[in-house]
């Protein structure tokens, strides 16, 4: 299914929308199901990033279409009971895109530091 979608939409251009980057960042550690992606994004951002069902799956669909994410099969999560869940994993293209976006954000932060908009990097 993912392969058929890849041909229809081009990979997203930088800067990535925040939800897109958050999802890619959550998948960098390994494959996850929807709730795990949402929870990881919320924990990493101290609860400021809350991906609703429509935003999460709408973004995942776009990422699948663009070939940045692929489906990793269905299985139960031992921590969450017997219910089968669809897992998603990041592709090589997704990694490259996420890395490019992280570098872009890093340049923005460094520029903000140079201009003393924010303090020096904590040790």
């Amino acid at each position, binding site marked *: 299914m993912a392969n058929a979608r890849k041909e229809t939409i081009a990979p997203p251009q930088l800067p990535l929308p925040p939800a897109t980057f958050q999802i890619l960042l959550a998948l960098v550690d390994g494959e996850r199901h929807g709730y795990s992606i949402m929870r990881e994004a919320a924990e990493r951002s101290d609860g400021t990033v809350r991906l609703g069902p429509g935003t*999460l799956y709408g973004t995942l*669909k776009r990422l699948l279409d663009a070939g940045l994410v692929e489906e990793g099969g269905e299985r139960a999560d031992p921590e969450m009971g017997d219910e089968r869940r669809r897992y998603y994993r990041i592709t090589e293209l997704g990694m490259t895109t996420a890395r490019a976006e992280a570098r872009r954000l890093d340049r923005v932060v460094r520029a903000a530091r140079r201009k003393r908009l924010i303090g020096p990097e904590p040790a």
Partner: protein
Amino acid sequence: MSAREDAAERAFRALLRAYPPDFRAGYAREMVQLFRDRRRVGHEAGMRFWMEIVLDAARSAPALRIERLRATGRRGNQLTEGTMRPIAILAVLVGVVQVANAMLEWSAGRSQSGDGYSVAGVALGLVAAALLVGAGIAMLRRGRDAAALARVAAVGCLVMVVLIRFVQPWMSIFGLLLGIGFPIALLVFLFLTRSSGPASRMTA
């Protein structure tokens, strides 16, 4: 599942109707699963939770519907472009055949009467043929006003052929069918494909 949970899930399923059908077919089960996980595992509930859910649907559903419409539009454009090209080539070919036909008509008319009407008929026939060739070329070039130009050329061709019928009454059935039938068919085609802007389609 408690009655309260059941009602909450039913309300969420109703909210999913805001999303495009193909998106629902692919993701509704997982979205319900996520909703359930947030309530059971994340212990999320109350007005704030529902506000978040409704706002998320209000933001994401229209965006997905617009994306769906755009994707449908792109497929429609491909279909029209696929149809437009053969019609355009046909218009050029019919124009060329009309030139040959005008020459034949002129030859036949001259042998019968040899008056100035034959010359006028041939001249009008050549203009009609040139208009059809022009319509075909405009459609092939996919210019911004291609559809409008093709429409004007088709109407012009139709007027020319009707005029020829007056000045050259011995015009053949073949000439009439080709000269009147094809521009009408072309106008019907352009009319049927006008709704999403044939000109913009051709430039897409």
